[in-house]
């Protein structure tokens, strides 16, 4: 699904050039749950932006669904971001003057889905996220966890093959973080490829594979033998809460 070979990214800020990625190579197959880890400045966010077609590489190849990305035009980028990739951000990136429902509708609007159809799908997605009674609320009326679930619903709007999540739990407490990871694990079970960028080891342990970056280089590519089960952790937490 994703094939990367010697990917490089250099930022040229006039006087100094920063080599954010110094030649990365790896593949990600369909249906994988991958965590990308690294300290800040390791290049993991840069990699995320390249994978999400928000930015273009300086050198190297990136093949997404058998297509060499560098051969594509800007409008193809927009289409791929719209239909094939779902983004989840650390700060949610919901539009503040739109309700949860309208935020979820947004990608479908750009995909040209008719109003009735997209309202139906957005409602369905919010229901799946347990937010049916919050769908007419604005982001500032929702908690962080609720906002992140709205954002996940939005990322699923056009039924993408890949979810790209950049520090999705970074702004959440441990309990809501578990909830988010639970949703990702369930989506992954349904066949969606999940790529999560995180600096938290316990979050990364929910993935099936961990790519570790350091100074713009891939230093480790590990399979997680026994990924943590967020759903199980949540239900045991609930039991504890119930017994008290």
């Amino acid at each position, binding site marked *: 699904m994703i094939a990367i070979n010697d990917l490089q990214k250099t930022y040229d800020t006039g006087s100094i050039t920063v080599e954010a990625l110094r030649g990365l190579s790896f593949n990600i197959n369909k249906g994988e749950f991958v965590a990308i880890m690294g300290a800040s400045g390791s290049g993991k966010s840069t990699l995320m*932006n390249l994978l*999400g077609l*928000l*930015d273009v590489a300086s050198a190297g190849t990136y093949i997404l669904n058998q297509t060499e990305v560098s051969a594509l035009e*800007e*409008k193809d980028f*927009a*289409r791929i*971001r*719209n*239909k094939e990739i779902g*983004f989840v951000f650390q700060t949610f*990136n*919901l*539009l503040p*003057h*739109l309700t949860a429902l309208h935020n979820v509708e*947004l*990608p479908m*609007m*750009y*995909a040209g889905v008719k*109003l009735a159809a997209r309202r139906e799908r957005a409602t369905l997605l919010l229901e799946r996220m347990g937010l049916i009674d919050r769908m007419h609320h604005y982001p500032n009326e929702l908690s962080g966890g609720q906002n992140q679930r709205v954002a996940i619903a*939005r990322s699923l709007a*056009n039924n993408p093959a890949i979810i790209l999540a950049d520090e999705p739990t970074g702004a959440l407490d441990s309990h809501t973080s578990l909830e988010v990871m639970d949703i990702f694990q369930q989506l992954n079970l349904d066949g969606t490829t999940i790529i999560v960028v995180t600096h938290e080891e316990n979050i990364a342990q929910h993935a099936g594979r961990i790519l570790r970056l350091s100074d713009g280089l891939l230093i480790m590519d590990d399979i997680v033998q026994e990924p943590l089960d967020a759903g199980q952790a949540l239900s045991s937490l609930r039991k504890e809460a119930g017994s008290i």
Partner: protein
Amino acid sequence: MNIRELMVVALASIRSSKLRSFLTTLGIVIGIAAVISVVAIGQGGKAMLMQELEKFGTNLFVVYVNYQEGETSRPSDLQVSDITLIKNVVPEVKYMAPVCYTQMKLRGSQGQKTVQLLGTSADLVHVNNLEIAQGRFLNEEDESAGRQVIVIQEDTAKELFGSEKPLGQRVVIGSTSSMVVGVLKQDTSVLNDNSRQSAYITMSLMRNMTGWTYIHQIYGSATSKEAVDTAMERTKSILERRHNAPGHYEARSMEQEMQSANKILGIVGLVIGLIAGISLLVGGIGVMNIMLVSVTERTREIGIRMALGARRQDILIQFLFESIVLCLMGGIIGTILGYGGAYVVAKIAHWPPLVSWWTIVIAFLFSAGVGLFFGLYPANQAARLKPIEALRRE
């Protein structure tokens, strides 16, 4: 995105900063209101002037002597007998009256008044569309019998005779006295300076009083609007031949007067309209300025939209549409205010507020055009943002 969705997005964003949107659009409101009211007042004034001029009769023409420098009037320049001849030989001439005028003080039983005294004939009532309030106008017999009669205006009658009935009263002019046979309705036209009153006597009486053997001007009226030019030309050529003086006479029709008045008013209107239009330009610059600020402020929103699949053209259209909607709202409010202003002015000045449908259409198109023109640059700035840089901006 279709128009409806663009509209929703634009309105949502305009609503999200109400005060700013209002202030931004105020420039357009004032610009459009200024243009609309200026055009409406101008058009109303013009229509009113034309209406007033038409009251004098569109078939009207005036013949006068075209004096060259150093020339003085000769008794033979224009004669009453000329009129008799012209009326007989020019079928296009329906009515024709001689006119001599002088300033005179009239004295009545209750007061006195200085008026413009006109020596003329019975035809003038038709030529000038005079409206009679009481009695009658001068007639042929007054002239032939040399009757000492006078026709005055309502306001003059009040000054001279107070509340007394004017008909049959004596008016003293210098050493002679005349009887009032008719009272003309006071002309309410804005063109008429009501402080200046006119009174009418026969040519023979005028001749007796002043010793003039010639007339100053000839007022004529053609059988139809189309016949005016022919009537004028033939009158002129008869006068030239009869007095053996080529180029000595000039004639102007009401039609020509109206056309030149129209032209002058048109130019004045255009100039004022252009000045008003400048305020629209200033308003447009205000819109552009705020749109640029808006693009900067909403960089992150643009980044998010791009990440969710918005193409550059989607962003461009979104901001362009917002600018157009903002300006159109200003256009609508401005049109209402402008029309209201024109209406008030028209009420005060007693003329019709004329806002033609094309003025409104142009105002709408123009405000949309201002939105398009001044929105294009900011919208393009927004569309050219790189998604990653836009997303990173706080």
